């Protein structure tokens, strides 16, 4: 089956089974192939739902103009109430909040969803959404010549759909192959079952065959699987042990064939990217930067009551709040010449929210004591942290401290190669000017905040401070300076102990920073970034 035939089939299946398949995740750049696919979905009568759709658009609300004109309550229904299907353009950019609302509506029998994913690399729509979309199709590399528009008899297939039977053996094989592919969710085999049924209905069969099941595995299961490991192709995915073949007629052969079909359905590179996208949505990298609420920039949030000097007035919301009272207020003040009787309590302010980028400041101890002990290990740890920050689209900055002073080796950047180069060239030796390092990090953080970044600090040191802030070699003053600066530094931080023995001073410093302390050999570097409080 050609990729286009498969995609066209996905569209037809959705038109036949509708809600039981949940929806379609269509990974494609805009172009003729996508247009043809969307034309095939026309029977769904989908309406567009942009990534920034407001709650008023989704759930409906008061129709202000009508209500004021007629003096009656006029509500406008939302997309979720009226649309039989929703088309989500740029679904890979959708916020988890919107995905959550759509998902809840879908679970309650709301509109069928078609997510258009223009994601590059490992971008993908939120998991709450893709979980509920039964079908997947990718349109990469489909040319004009491949497109054919012959459409099947949908009406007949729809009528036949409900009465199609799926043999028990086939059903069990679908469930078993989903498990063998490492798919945890039980929605997947349910979708596959519906797809097999719809495929049989389209082919005019009253009973689903293995061919239908294979198609279902390709369209519903393939994209959810974990990519097979390259080195040991026999190795099972870690949390789904290879299933015992189910007893009875189903037999392992069926499930194996389905697994094979599913594996062959997608180019291996794509599967790896989808898996990477799932991982990137995980907790460790879920947000690049904190969320900033404000009244000026970003995605709009519902307006809240407030005083006009505290922000920008939301005229529509203010009117909405004032409108119901006009009758009452007019009666109380019949001679008031104003057309609209506003009270301070009516005033609503605009609220917006935007995600800020995160800046991870690495402060690295390159002093003699640290260099001797573990410089190489520390460099390795930083590299792994760096590549994670890079994957999460954070910016990084590098501060190194040794001899008498701290030096900003790398101002905030996104370039991974640059950071690596500077890090490799990092010389070691000399005293430990911890206080100077904290001061430099503090400066960077202040500047970053001004640029709208959310800074955090990862401090790698053995904590044996011996150079005070003014550059003199005085161990006691150095420690006191460092603690003092650490207290003043209001920055989410993580301290990584690079020393060979635990150091009580470092524990104290971590407390002053209000930061978790992790010693190098224990720190699973994968978890380290997630530890940074936001």
């Amino acid at each position: 089956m050609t990729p286009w035939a498969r995609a066209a089939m996905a569209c037809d299946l959705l038109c036949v089974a509708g809600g039981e398949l949940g929806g379609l995740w269509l990974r494609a750049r805009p172009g003729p192939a996508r247009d043809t696919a969307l034309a095939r979905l026309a029977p769904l009568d989908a309406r567009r739902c942009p990534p920034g759709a407001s709650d008023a658009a989704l759930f409906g609300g008061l129709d202000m103009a009508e209500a004021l004109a007629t003096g009656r309550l006029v509500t406008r229904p939302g997309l979720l109430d009226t649309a039989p299907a929703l088309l989500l353009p740029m679904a890979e950019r959708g916020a988890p909040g919107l995905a959550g609302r759509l998902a809840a509506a879908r679970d309650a029998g709301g509109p069928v969803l078609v997510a258009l994913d223009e994601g590059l690399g490992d971008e993908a729509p939120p998991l709450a959404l893709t979980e509920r979309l039964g079908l997947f199709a990718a349109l990469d590399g489909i040319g004009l010549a491949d497109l054919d528009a012959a459409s099947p008899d949908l009406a007949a297939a729809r009528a036949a759909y409900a009465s199609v039977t799926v043999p028990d053996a086939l059903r069990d094989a679908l469930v078993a192959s989903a498990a063998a592919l490492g798919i945890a969710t039980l929605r997947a085999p349910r979708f596959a079952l519906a797809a097999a049924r719809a495929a049989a209905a389209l082919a005019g069969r009253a009973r689903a065959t293995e061919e239908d099941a294979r198609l279902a595995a390709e369209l519903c299961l393939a994209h959810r699987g974990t990519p097979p490991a390259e080195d040991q192709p026999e190795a099972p995915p870690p949390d789904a042990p290879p299933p015992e073949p189910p007893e009875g007629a189903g037999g392992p052969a069926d499930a194996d064939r389905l697994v094979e079909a599913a594996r062959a359905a997608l180019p291996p590179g794509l599967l790896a990217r989808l898996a990477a996208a799932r991982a990137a949505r995980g907790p460790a990298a879920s947000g690049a930067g904190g969320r900033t609420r404000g009244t000026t920039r970003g995605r709009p949030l519902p307006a809240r009551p407030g005083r006009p000097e505290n922000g920008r007035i939301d005229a529509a919301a203010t009117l909405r709040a004032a409108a119901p009272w006009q009758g009452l207020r007019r009666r109380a003040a019949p001679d008031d010449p104003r057309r609209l009787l506003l009270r301070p309590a009516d005033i609503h302010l605009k609220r917006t929210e935007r995600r800020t980028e995160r800046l991870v400041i690495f402060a690295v101890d390159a002093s003699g004591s640290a260099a001797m002990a573990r410089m190489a290990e520390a460099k390795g740890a930083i590299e792994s942290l760096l590549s994670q920050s890079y994957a999460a689209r954070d910016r990084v900055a590098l501060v190194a401290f040794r001899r008498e002073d701290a030096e900003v080796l790398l101002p905030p950047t996104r370039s991974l190669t640059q950071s690596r180069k500077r890090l490799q060239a990092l010389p070691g030796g000399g005293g430990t000017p911890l206080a100077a390092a904290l001061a430099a990090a503090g400066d960077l953080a202040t500047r970053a905040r001004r640029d709208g970044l959310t800074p955090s600090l990862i401090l790698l040191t053995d904590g044996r401070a011996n150079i005070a802030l003014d550059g003199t070699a005085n161990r006691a003053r150095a420690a006191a300076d460092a603690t003092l600066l650490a207290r003043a530094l209001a920055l989410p931080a993580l301290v990584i102990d690079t020393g060979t023995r635990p150091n009580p001073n470092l524990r104290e410093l971590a407390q002053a920073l209000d930061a978790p302390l992790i010693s190098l050999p224990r720190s699973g570097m994968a978890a380290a970034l997630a530890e940074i409080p936001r």
Partner: protein
Amino acid sequence: MIPRPFPFTAIVGQDDMTRAMVLTAIDPGIGGVLVMGDRGTGKSTAVRALAHLLPPIRAVAGCPVNSARRADIPDWARVEDTRLVSRPTPVVDLPLGAGEDRVTGALDIERALTMGEKAFQPGLLARANRGYLYIDEVNLLEDHLVDLLLDVAQSGENVVEREGLSIRHPARFVLVGSGNPEEGELRPQLLDRFGLMVDVTSPSDVETRIEVIRRRDAFERDRAAFLRGWKPAETALRRDILAARKRLPGVVTPEAALRDCAELCLALGSDGLRGELTLLRTARAMAALDGSGELGRDHLRRVAPMALQHRLRRDPMDESGSTTRVARIVEEVFGAVPAAAE
């Protein structure tokens, strides 16, 4: 009419989740259940199923807050139909996008616009009184709504002071939240407010998975027949819940059990006394369900993970899950499980 949901007793596995829900049905005072875990494990199915399983409540027909007696009807409500009727236990969905107005209730705009009257239109909290309030993807809820819910859940009363209205009404409900931890963490304040917390994971053996799909498919193909088949099991569980409710006030709590509770919570270092109180209440409900007249160690042992796991201080070094930690400490405090107990 909403079609009948999937029967509660037909849910395969997920014993922790179903047990936690049954316990809150026996004693609503336990204070809600939080279900966190994998997608597609039947979290929302279970909540909807539970509502249908529960025995109906007696309420005033026209009352917006489901008052049990005519005397309890709030004074702002203009109730025309004051007959006592029996109706299903309310389960109210709180959609993520719900505005404050819809949750707490607000000025009745229709009446204000057409009649120029100041009247209160009750919200979701009113409808959930004496029932369940269900929030899916609770970890994505807007902060100001979370604060509001915390406040109402604690006081059992919804107070609306806005737009010139001053209204209060009872809002006692069992809060059921579900979510996927990957999408975002829940604030500790809200976490602590849920009485019980259970983790759900997707079943890993194929036989169980096939059984789940088999039942689900049978249900979707022919609902009526499926529901008929499960009716005896549903009736039996309902009877058990009713019997346990009756037995609950008579469950004796020996001094030793109180001591066990305190020791367990101390050993776990759980914050505040809420953990101890919840543990005790839940264990009593468990004893009532078991049909035993006295609270024993075994009951505490069985409910300790769900009552305590979300109240532990987080230890960044400890990789094992909270449930494992609770189980480990329960074993340390109570000793290993006697062979006959489980």
